[in-house]
């Protein structure tokens, strides 16, 4: 248990020292959201209508950017191999690293998202639902993205391939994340959508570590 805590602490410390990583993810998020009013036009009616979708899509893309940090650095300098040989089971290591990853990229996105929703003039009823949906959705994004990151950790120029692999798997989270906010805005029941997001979260926690660990073992052979 303390080994896992040590892994989380190490990842957090590295991210803190390299503060630019978290900042980069947040700045990319803000920039992407900013592009939409510039492209679509600033009419409040249109922006309010697409606000939830834009925030979620930008969050997905920002998560994709952050995935490079999950396994790549540790794989390249050999720490992952050491962990595999002497540490706790790789599946638990994946969970620990996903948690640290979420704390340094998912959580900042979650905290910034209401501010960006304000700039897109999202109706007031949607903010709490947006926070709740992102709280449940971004951990799933870290976990599912971890599968893609593990599969492409040893691939040359794997960034684009990572996007192709991971974005289709992100689609359910996107769909239900947006539908949660839309439900809150139109006044219908939000709980079913949140429950589906929660189910996705539990499913990811249970299944994604196995796929990621399998892929990492493959890369470390």
């Amino acid at each position, binding site marked *: 248990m303390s080994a896992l805590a040590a892994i989380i602490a190490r990842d957090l410390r590295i991210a803190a020292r390299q503060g630019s990583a978290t900042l980069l993810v947040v700045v990319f998020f803000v920039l992407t959201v900013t592009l939409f009013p510039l492209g679509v036009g600033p009419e409040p009616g249109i922006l309010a209508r697409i606000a939830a979708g834009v925030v979620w899509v930008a969050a997905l893309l920002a998560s994709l950017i952050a995935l490079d940090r999950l396994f790549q650095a540790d794989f390249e300098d050999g720490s992952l191999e050491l962990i595999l040989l002497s540490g706790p089971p790789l599946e638990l290591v994946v969970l620990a690293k996903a948690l640290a990853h979420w704390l340094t990229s998912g959580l900042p996105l979650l905290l910034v998202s209401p501010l960006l929703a304000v700039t897109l003039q999202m109706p007031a009823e949607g903010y709490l639902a947006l926070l709740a949906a992102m709280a449940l959705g971004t951990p799933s994004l870290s976990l599912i993205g971890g*599968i893609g990151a593990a*599969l*492409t950790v040893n691939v040359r120029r794997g960034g684009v391939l990572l996007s192709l*692999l991971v974005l*289709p*798997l992100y689609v359910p989270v996107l*769909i239900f994340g947006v539908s949660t906010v839309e439900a809150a805005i139109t006044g219908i029941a939000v709980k079913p959508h949140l429950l589906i997001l929660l189910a996705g979260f539990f499913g990811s926690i249970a*299944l994604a570590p196995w796929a990621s660990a399998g892929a990492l073992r493959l890369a470390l*052979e």
Partner: protein
Amino acid sequence: MATEAMALSQTDKAPARGAAGLHRFANPARFSRLSARLLPWTAALAVGLIALGLYLALFVAPADYQQGQSVRIMFVHVPSAWMALFCYSFMALASAVGLIWRHPLADLAAKATAPVGALFTFTALLTGSLWGKPMWGTWWVWDARLTSVLVLFFLYLGYMALWQAFDDDAKAARAAAILALVGAVNVPIIKFSVDWWNTLHQPASVLRLDGPAIHASMLWPLVVMTLGFTCYFATVLLLGLRAELNERRARILRQRALSRL
């Protein structure tokens, strides 16, 4: 090294690990003979059944009272969609067999299935779009089934891209197998999408718990076309496996020739 030895083996000897069950056909020479015997049959059946199915679909099946003749697109659209799902399920199953039992042909079977599965998916989307314009008034709509089939298409493309991304074939096989199994969650989503979401695409009419809801005059052409497409898939699969095995043999022979220089 084991795969090298197996790829080159030209004799009838069983692999050293024991010849239990399907591992008998891991011997490329034996598989080569089996596929050479099967291929003419599957190819002939494919051509025959598709020809028969097209005849039934175009001339025998009745026109729809509402849609007229354009309903006949269904006889290509529905079998393609069924085959798209079938191919992905087959790919996931072959990947699981390859991961668990390390059967060398299982990985290659999954690899060979991906392009034809992607083709069936694309055909389903294309014919559906062509059918949707006269029937729904639109080329495309983001309803549950169309979206999830589009996601299936991207999963196929990602699977093929992952195979290309690795230099080592064995690693590529296992990475792709993991990806195929992760993406398999999309298959039940596609199947039940028309039940879970009440959107534009019509609900299930054939594969339902209550039995088919369409008349035999339309059901039989569908079944014949589906069987024809399945034989086509089997033909392409066998050809693909033979091609993969030959390519491996050629590569090993080339390496051996180079190392002897």
